[in-house]
């Protein structure tokens, strides 16, 4: 794969928590349009990697470059603006707000936030609102037409599968370059997980440029949707390659079986 296909390039990413080394000089590239599976046992640093990359935690060492732009020192807001959107392991939707509101939270960058626009120019606001409503509806429709008819219901009314979908819509509405999915199958049945993966594949077909990094435990899911996998253990990358390659890897087997 050529250099210009690299969307995100991380070198030497390191993060300490006190004396604990959560990420240990991690190098990882993500290419445009690929689905990269991030694997590893619990506590191996996968979520920490997301948190460091998205600016929730600072880098202790190393750097990250997204599409030619250094995002190492960026705040969470700035990383998002640069085109990285994510979901959370524990769903972090605003349960009391409507489905539409939740998706608009993700669209914050593209909304007009001026005081006069919002408070005085109500007609212009109404136009912007309608355009956004249509866009949000179209996006939700890709996942589930039934959801698209319930745009004004509070998210608290929806089951887990739908909440995951809404969370992904919230991440996608701003048209990010890179989508980080943190264990989207957590708390769902096998059936539901596969339904969600169908949706993700549909999204992928819709937006071929979008790169996705997905943290996942369920092997059938990984096998089905990833192009490439990277395996972490104790904050280090121990293996990288296709799913078939990584499961054959000796070190990976040891990491999962716990034999050190």
């Amino acid at each position: 794969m050529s250099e210009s296909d690299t969307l995100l390039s991380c070198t030497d990413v390191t993060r300490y928590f006190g004396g604990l080394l959560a990420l240990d000089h991690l190098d990882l590239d993500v290419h445009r349009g690929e689905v990269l599976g991030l694997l590893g046992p619990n506590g191996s640093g996968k979520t920490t990697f997301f948190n460091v990359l998205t600016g929730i935690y600072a880098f202790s060492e190393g750097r990250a470059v997204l599409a030619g732009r250094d995002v190492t020192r960026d705040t969470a807001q700035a990383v998002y603006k640069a085109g990285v959107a994510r979901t959370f392991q524990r769903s972090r939707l605003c349960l009391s707000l409507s489905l539409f509101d939740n998706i608009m939270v993700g669209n914050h960058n593209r909304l007009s936030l001026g005081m006069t626009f919002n408070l005085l120019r109500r007609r212009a606001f109404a136009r912007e609102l309608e355009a956004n409503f249509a866009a949000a509806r179209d996006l939700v429709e890709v996942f589930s037409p039934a959801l698209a008819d319930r745009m004004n219901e509070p998210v608290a009314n929806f089951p887990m599968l739908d909440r995951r979908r809404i969370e992904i819509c919230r991440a996608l509405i701003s048209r990010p370059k890179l989508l980080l999915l943190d264990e989207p199958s957590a708390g769902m049945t096998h059936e539901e997980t596969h339904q969600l993966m169908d949706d993700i594949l549909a999204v992928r077909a819709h937006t071929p440029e979008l790169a996705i990094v997905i943290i996942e435990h369920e092997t059938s899911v990984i096998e089905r949707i990833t192009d490439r996998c990277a395996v972490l253990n104790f904050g280090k990358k121990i293996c990288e390659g296709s799913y078939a390659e990584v499961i054959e890897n000796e070190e990976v087997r040891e990491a999962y079986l716990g034999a050190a």
Partner: protein
Amino acid sequence: MDNVSQASAARRPDSPQVITSLVMGLVGGALLTGFAAWFLKAESEYVVGFLLLLAVVGAVAASRLGALDRIGVAFGAYEKSLYAIVIAGVLVLAWIFRQDHFTLLMITTVMVYMLAGLGLNVQFGYLGLINLSGASFIGVGAYTSAVLTMHSAIPPLLILLIGGVLSALVGCLLILPVLRTRGHYAAVVTIAFAILFESFLKVNDILGGPQGLPVGAMSLFGWSFNNPITFGGFQASFYMNYLLLTLAVLALAFALVRRVERSWIGLSMDAVRLDETAAACYGIGIRRWKVLGFTLGNFLIGVAGAIYGMMLGFIAPANFGFSDSLILVSIVLLGGIGNPWGLALASAIVVILPEKLQMIQEYRFLLFASLVVLVLLFRPDGLLPRGMRNYLPGRKVAP
């Protein structure tokens, strides 16, 4: 526009059901005004007790029969006309009690509390910033009006604005610690400020110390608000001036806060309140909204204080203590966090009830504190919970 809630989507604004709802809104408004008038007129505590019972039974019955929902729908569809009904109701009450100083003062005080409550509502209800020094910011406004009415020639209407601006500026002193902290930590900053402000007012020499200060009257186009109104055969207490002014200011503030809520600003504030970390991950500028909301809230509270000072004519530190701040927070909690209409109900309960039931006057702090404890335990969304955001009420539903 497909933004009216699902329930109302089924009932288009021109459907017969909404017409019925509108009629019900009118009837409800008339009933409520009548009830309020009777309540304010009531002298004997038995009558007051009976009316309270009636109110509780009426509210429960209305909510069981779905009338409250209907009125809610009507509000969504014909909001402007229903605002008019409410304002008309207040004016009718004002007319009935035009010569009764005390009742007019009470009605105006309810509206002043509501105005301050709107400020807290932005801070606490939308942003999740709990401000336990609300009474201090009322104090800033009131003391500003005292100093400026007595020692300057600035037109009093401008003094209202200055009171709000000064209150917002004093709030800016707290902004750094408030921004750098979350939850409890931010709460303690405001508590520390409330106590600091209270002791400052008590010990200083410039602002009258514990005795307080006199405040000059409001005046507009040369008309002093401390004059009774006489207009041909019509005569009214001077409090009528303040009532009308407060009503006008309150209506403006209400519209402003409503628009804040029904815009991307309100959405951003809600996101900050509900999950700061997630909000930051979606590019929401936490600091920007906190500064804006905290400042806007303190501005409204300061304006309320300036009006209050002018109306009372005399202010003292005892009016702006920590327990008064607690009362303000109780109003927001009792009414329903984030719902400006809840403030109306809660302010009325908190201001009028102790005056009408002298026997509970002594027990009022105990009573309200217990009431808020019960609300937090059993009905944490308050008496009138906040509804879903309706960006453009009254717009027809798009296909």
